[in-house]
């Protein structure tokens, strides 16, 4: 995307938390911004990349993005990186030592926790990293605060020479609210100053930095005591005082308008004295934090009596309808009776792969393989575990398909002696963390068939560009990785590397069957783009000729959402066997003509839509 003219200062704009952070990053004079996509954080870098005068990039993974940002901050420039919660697990190796060196230019790490698990493999609380790495954590409660706190985070980062974690949650990232924006200020980088005692973390040097880090933490706690981000809002109903952070603040204010509230915007290190003074004004304290009892546990350790996770859930959002009954219970009041109608039972609507997705043929083929264990990974293709394919057996974290497959191979139980092990991984996931696992498979002579699904995009998060498609974050041409060369360089033998078109089912099946029979590492690379990106071109749509459809249901097994069952039946074959029939129609307006469903249709009932109209015309004439 080309740089756009940013809205003028003092405009009031409807912004998501991600938009607001991005605007503040630009205004703060940041020079370098880096990220690997991940819901709900992705839009931050997408939006930053549209601002002028700021270098932005998609990095190959979160660890690299943090290292890039840190390099810029070492050089004295302001730097930013964004990631989803699990991204910081990947980046944590860098974090745990760069906290010792500290920074020169401001370094802000926005971490988006998926509270409520709308699109993640786990729900973890990134505020732990503040404690573990001894860095401050700021927790905005809405878009305006996301903007304000980002600016404050850069100031704090430079004042204390520390990286700062800006802790976002799905509700902050994606809620839109009104934000008043300001001017961009220029920030002059101090330039890199050689200082091996500070920047080269060998044991002796690191040991000398430790006391500095703890001293910094002490000063940060003192800062939190006086910070304007930690405010007491007095209230007339003092039966319960709330100590709140993050989006839960808004829910508390909404639910208990008259209660005193201590809002911790700068929640780590916790300002204990401020909490003590607040406690003196209330009959009892309740800590409302998403999701783990971090502040609560620390307050208890200080001897401050608080209630928290004993009455509130340990996971999910603390919305008003969760808070109200819990507090009523604490006060011994009857739970508020709200006249809520019962939900009506209705089928689930799980996410599906797109019409004509290049992964469909792969899973259709995998579903035909017998005696196979399929080690999966994270991306759109994770959906292959579901119906109608049921062809993915495990998935934990990015890149794990490789190591898990090797472990499944080496750790075979007796019953698995002849099991074939297949690993399925997407292009972006392979580049993020999968390459190392494949090298491990090759080096340790594993017997694994790897399906590398190269759809030239980070599909799951919205089709971002990556090193596999030769475009950078602005969509401009960039060097493109050659997957076949890459896996050969990792040691997979040339004869065992195949590039196949995932819409050619017979070839795909043949390759898979062959490679799973050969007891050495092999890689089958698919080469068709995600349908959401510009590399994809629609073809002529198909339709079903009713009279020809025998109801065999083969096309339904492709799993394309454009194929709908119109009628079911059950017949008894001559052999006496009962067979279920499913007659179908194709939603021609949605079909993009990939041709997958045509291939398993024996009676040739699926034809190009135009041909039918010609036939109809002939019939009419």
């Amino acid at each position: 995307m080309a740089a756009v003219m940013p809205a003028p200062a003092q405009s009031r704009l409807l912004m998501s938390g991600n938009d607001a952070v991005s605007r503040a990053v630009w205004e703060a004079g940041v020079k370098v911004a880096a990220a690997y996509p991940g819901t709900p954080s992705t839009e931050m870098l997408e939006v930053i990349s549209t601002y002028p005068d700021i270098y932005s990039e998609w990095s190959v993974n979160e660890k690299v993005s943090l290292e890039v940002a840190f390099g810029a901050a070492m050089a004295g420039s302001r730097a930013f990186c964004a990631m989803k919660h699990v991204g910081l697990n990947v980046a944590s190796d860098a974090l745990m030592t760069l906290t010792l060196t500290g920074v020169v230019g401001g370094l802000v790490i926005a971490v988006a926790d998926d509270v409520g698990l709308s699109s993640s493999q786990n729900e973890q609380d990134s505020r732990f990293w503040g404690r573990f790495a001894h860095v401050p954590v700021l927790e905005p409660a809405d878009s305006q605060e996301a903007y304000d706190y980002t600016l404050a985070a850069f100031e704090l980062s430079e004042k204390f020479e520390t990286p700062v974690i800006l802790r976002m949650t799905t509700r902050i990232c994606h809620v839109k609210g009104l934000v008043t924006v300001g001017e961009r200020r220029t920030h002059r980088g101090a330039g890199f100053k050689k200082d091996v005692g500070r920047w080269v973390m060998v044991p002796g040097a690191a040991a000398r930095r430790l006391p500095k880090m703890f001293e910094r933490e002490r000063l940060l706690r003192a800062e939190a005591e006086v910070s304007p981000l930690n405010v007491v809002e007095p209230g007339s109903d003092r039966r319960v005082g709330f100590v709140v952070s993050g989006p839960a603040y808004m829910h508390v204010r909404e639910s208990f308008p008259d209660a005193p509230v201590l809002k911790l915007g700068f929640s780590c290190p916790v300002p204990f004295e401020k909490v003590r003074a607040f406690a003196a004004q209330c009959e009892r304290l309740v800590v409302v934090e998403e999701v783990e009892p971090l502040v609560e546990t620390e307050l208890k350790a200080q001897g401050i009596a608080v209630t928290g996770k004993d009455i509130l859930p340990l996971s999910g959002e603390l919305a008003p309808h969760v808070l109200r009954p819990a507090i009523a219970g604490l006060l011994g009041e009857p739970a508020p009776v709200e006249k809520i109608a019962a939900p009506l039972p209705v089928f689930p609507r799980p996410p599906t792969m797109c019409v004509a997705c290049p992964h469909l043929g792969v899973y259709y083929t995998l579903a035909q393989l017998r005696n196979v264990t399929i080690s999966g990974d994270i991306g759109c293709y994770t959906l292959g575990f579901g119906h109608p394919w049921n062809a993915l057996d495990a998935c934990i974290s990015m890149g794990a398909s490789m190591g898990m497959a090797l472990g499944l191979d080496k750790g075979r139980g007796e019953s698995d002696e002849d099991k074939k092990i297949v690993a399925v991984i997407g292009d972006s996931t392979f580049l993020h963390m999968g390459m190392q696992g494949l090298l491990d498979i090759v080096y340790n002579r594993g017997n694994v068939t790897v399906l590398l699904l190269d759809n030239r995009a980070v599909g799951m998060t919205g089709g971002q560009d990556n090193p596999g498609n030769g475009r950078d974050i602005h969509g401009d041409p960039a060097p493109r990785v050659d997957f076949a060369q890459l896996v050969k360089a990792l040691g997979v033998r040339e004869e065992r590397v195949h590039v196949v078109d995932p819409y050619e089912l017979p070839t795909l099946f043949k390759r898979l069957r062959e490679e799973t029979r050969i007891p050495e590492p092999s890689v089958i690379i698919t080469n068709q783009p995600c349908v959401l990106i510009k590399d994809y071109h629609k073809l002529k749509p198909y339709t079903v000729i009713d009279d020809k459809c025998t109801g065999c249901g083969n096309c339904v097994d492709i799993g394309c959402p454009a194929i709908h069952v119109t009628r079911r039946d059950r017949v008894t074959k001559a052999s006496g066997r009962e067979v279920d029939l499913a007659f179908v129609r194709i939603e021609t307006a949605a079909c993009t003509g990939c041709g997958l469903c045509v291939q398993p249709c024996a009676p040739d009932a699926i034809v190009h839509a135009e041909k039918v109209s010609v036939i109809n015309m002939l019939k009419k004439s």
Partner: protein
Amino acid sequence: MSKITNILVVGTGGQGVMTATEILAEAAIALGHDVKKTEVAGMAQRGGVVSSHLRFGPRVLSPQISPGTADVLLGFEAAEGMRWRHMLRPDGLALMNTGRLVPPVVDIGLYTYPDDPVAAMREAGTRVYAFDASGIAGELGDIRLGNTVMLGAISDQLSFPAEVLEQCVLKRFASKKPELVELNRRAFAAGRAAAQAALRGESEACCAAT
């Protein structure tokens, strides 16, 4: 807090639910309201459930609509109305597209699609105005006009004139695709007429019953 309006817009990924809510938000802002808009949209891009919350008034705190407090439910897909109708306050109103989107789990026979979602909602006590927004959009030439039809339908249920919302819809297209302004104007009017007809239908039914 009493002056907050809660509108819940629901449908499936790709139907334009979030855009429609955003346009409603813009209209509320144009009238000087504070606004918060939030989605629960998991992997919505790929055909999942989408519910978008819009709250506006003098000052909005929590972005979430609590169950049982939505003033209006704008349903882009028939069965999705069933899924969310418990979010309405007891005398709230559901404006439902009767158009259906059958998910693959139904096609492969794991679940069934309800025979008559609107009737099921009514039986359960929800006040519903139903009309075929998908059909109207299709007749106008493009199923993607469905969200403008839905916005037309809700335009007479708001605390501000329908024209404010219409202007916000048209403004979007005026800048990006001016050739679509006229079509959207018609889609908006058709949605408005359809909801009014549904209202008349309901009052006639009431009269007939008494």
